[in-house]
């Protein structure tokens, strides 16, 4: 209110900074106590030769593990597998919850709260149980999906054993996990001021116009969130194939995801150091992709309460 001179601003700014850091303190403390040490430890592992049985003495091996990494064809095969799968599953992971949330939010829908519960229901099913249930549904002989296709005369594929169909099969298994995404998208949709829709309608926008000019921009923070988490999750995808086929990578190596190879290196081959090296490569890749996403955010993510984040 009074003309602010520099020293005054910096004291206010200092107050703000101090408050901000104070609010951050739970995370900072927890990070230092529970996260930083294990993370640094794993980084150190990459420079040693730790194996479970440790038949050779523990010693510093420098960059050996990293060199092995670049020469290991399985690493690049697995990365390719992960990326191919991401091409199919990531769009589904982002678009499907958004669409269902739109549907649930629509004023034309009757009994929407009932539907909300029903769509959320499978999200609560324990993970392994859910995978096994869907594996039965996709069974090429006795599964319901092929049964349904058979009713309309289509010979259903051998979902989980045919290399051409295993990724769609895995995506189908993953569909039960969209409950969380539906909630997040719904919370976001509820946060859009209704006056915006009114204004758009007055301007003559129909359903599609409202979607393009009101919903999508206002939902961009949520979509951004779903996208970033989707990327991280797909890069770490491994539990479903592990449960389905104990990590053999069947059919034909198409389910040898990178993180699965990592898990096996740790717990089957018991090479802790090489496993840690694989993990750090994954870290860097994830960091790179996410970094690009964050940089791109300034072009398409719109925050009403803050200028966009850099």
């Amino acid at each position: 209110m009074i003309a602010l001179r520099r020293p005054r601003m910096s004291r206010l700014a200092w107050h703000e900074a101090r408050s901000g850091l104070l609010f951050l303190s739970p995370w900072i403390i927890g990070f230092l106590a529970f996260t930083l040490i294990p993370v640094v430890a794993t980084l150190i592992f990459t420079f040693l030769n730790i194996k479970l049985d440790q038949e050779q003495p523990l010693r510093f091996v420098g960059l050996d593990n990293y060199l092995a990494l670049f020469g290991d064809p399985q690493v690049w095969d697995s990365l390719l597998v992960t990326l191919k799968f991401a091409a199919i599953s990531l769009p589904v992971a982002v678009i499907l919850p958004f669409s269902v949330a739109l549907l649930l939010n629509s004023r034309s829908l009757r009994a929407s709260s009932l539907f909300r519960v029903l769509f959320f229901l499978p999200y609560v099913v324990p993970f392994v149980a859910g995978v096994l249930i869907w594996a039965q549904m996709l069974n090429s002989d006795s599964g319901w999906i092929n049964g349904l296709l058979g009713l309309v005369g289509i010979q259903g594929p051998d979902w989980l054993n045919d290399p051409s169909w295993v990724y769609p099969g895995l995506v189908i298994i993953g569909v039960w996990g969209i409950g969380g995404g539906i909630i997040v998208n719904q919370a976001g949709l509820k946060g859009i001021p209704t006056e915006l829709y009114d204004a758009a309608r007055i301007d003559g926008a129909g359903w599609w116009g409202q979607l393009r000019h009101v919903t999508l921009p206002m939902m961009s923070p949520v979509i951004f969130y779903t996208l970033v988490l989707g990327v991280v999750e797909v890069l770490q995808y491994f539990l479903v194939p592990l449960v389905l086929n104990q990590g053999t990578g069947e059919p034909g190596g198409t389910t040898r995801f990178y993180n699965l190879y990592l898990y096996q290196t740790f717990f089957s081959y018991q090479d802790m150091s090489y496993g840690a090296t694989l993990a750090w490569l994954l870290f860097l890749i994830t960091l790179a992709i996410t970094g690009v996403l964050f940089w791109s955010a300034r072009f398409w993510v719109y925050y009403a309460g803050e200028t966009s984040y850099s």
Partner: protein
Amino acid sequence: MHRTIPAFSAVVVALAVLITACSGGNANSSAPAASGTPQPTGPPVEIKWYCCLGTGDDKTQLPVEAKVVDDFNKSQTHIKLVFDHVAYDGARAAFATRIASGTPPDVVGPLGVGGAEAFRGQWLDLKDLIAKNNVDLSVYGQGAVDFYKVAGQGQIGIPFAVYPSELYFQKDMFDEAGLNYPPQKYGDKYKMPDGTMVDWNYDTFRTIAMKLTVDANNKDATQPGFDPKHIVQYGFEPQRDDLRGMGAYFGAGKLAADDNKTVQIPTGWAYGWKWIYDGMFKDHFIMTNQVYKSTAFNGGGYAFNSGKVAMQENFLWNVCCVTDAGDNWDLGAIPANPTDNKVTAVFNADTFRITKNSQHPDEAFTVLQYLLGPASKTLLNAYSAFPARTADQADFFTGLQGQKTDKGKPVYPAKVDWQIAVDGIQYADNPNFEAWMPAYNKSLDLLTQKLTKWTSTPGLNMDQEISTLKTQLQAVWDKG
């Protein structure tokens, strides 16, 4: 904040190195107790019994194990035995984590050769403890004791249980098909429906199995018009847990040649794999992988237990869980390989082991002796395991036969021929199919891949597949 970070990071790095050194190292962190019996005074020593890298997980077995632990703790005060139970699915990861963090469990079991090989090098050589405690190993057959003497690692186990293989079959299905039951003595011939006596080998077996494979129209696999897409009863189910075991039923062998570096495919195994492949995709008396996984046939568990399979080859431990197969099954002889007329009844053996880095080996050994001694009868019963101790063997089957469900019904059919299982011991596969090979876990992964492929994919050229396996496995071994 900025100023403090470098100093803090130094502390963090130091801590990390410390943890690494403590957990990743191989040093035996605590010296064994002074010679003589453990001190009877002082706070109780906690010994962890880790389960289950093998059997021991079943809901009928867990209460038995809990009671054994309880009884042990009540019988003395120096040791507190704790049952560390991690379900089989997470057991290997949890075990590896405990070892790597420097807190290995002390006693592990029951586990067989496969489970132990997955953690090769982690087991304590019991030689000194055996000598110190004057354990008499002559109560077990010499072969059983030698089974656990591994080059380079010492005597890493004391025999506890053996599981020979036998043929399980459903009497009703044979009756319905008008067939005679399989022979119940090794060496006996088999009488075909037309009266001729033939050798009991895999050729005969194939014919019988095809007759016992029936579709929804009551046609069997030998008849024209048989519909392989609607089979409701299968003739035979092999032991398909491990590709090596599958092959070993057709002849003993091991993948590592004597130089421990070169891959060799035992002739019996190659014969067996091809026989089984034809059985699945040509003659249709063995179910494919897809059918195996469907709930109609026990959803990925042993298909014989669905009650819709006429015969299976399996280990004796399967007896624990075959009760869903009905109350009219019996045991018979494993067929011989027609090319050399030899029978191989594949062998599994379980015992408890002590981890190399256990912090209380003496107390762990006391627990071990308890499990192998006073508690052994109860445990063997629960695991449906045949005692390795020769003196206990006679009573074993009486015990099994006397088991009753909690509703009072006998668990096993009244007249099972248990003797044929015992007879199978002399046909055990030597070398054992789970024998060591280089890059054990990686090799096992490759073998499991092949197993899935060969049981799911029609139209393969098996000779080519086997030769590819040889090349690929050699590549894995060469990389080390």
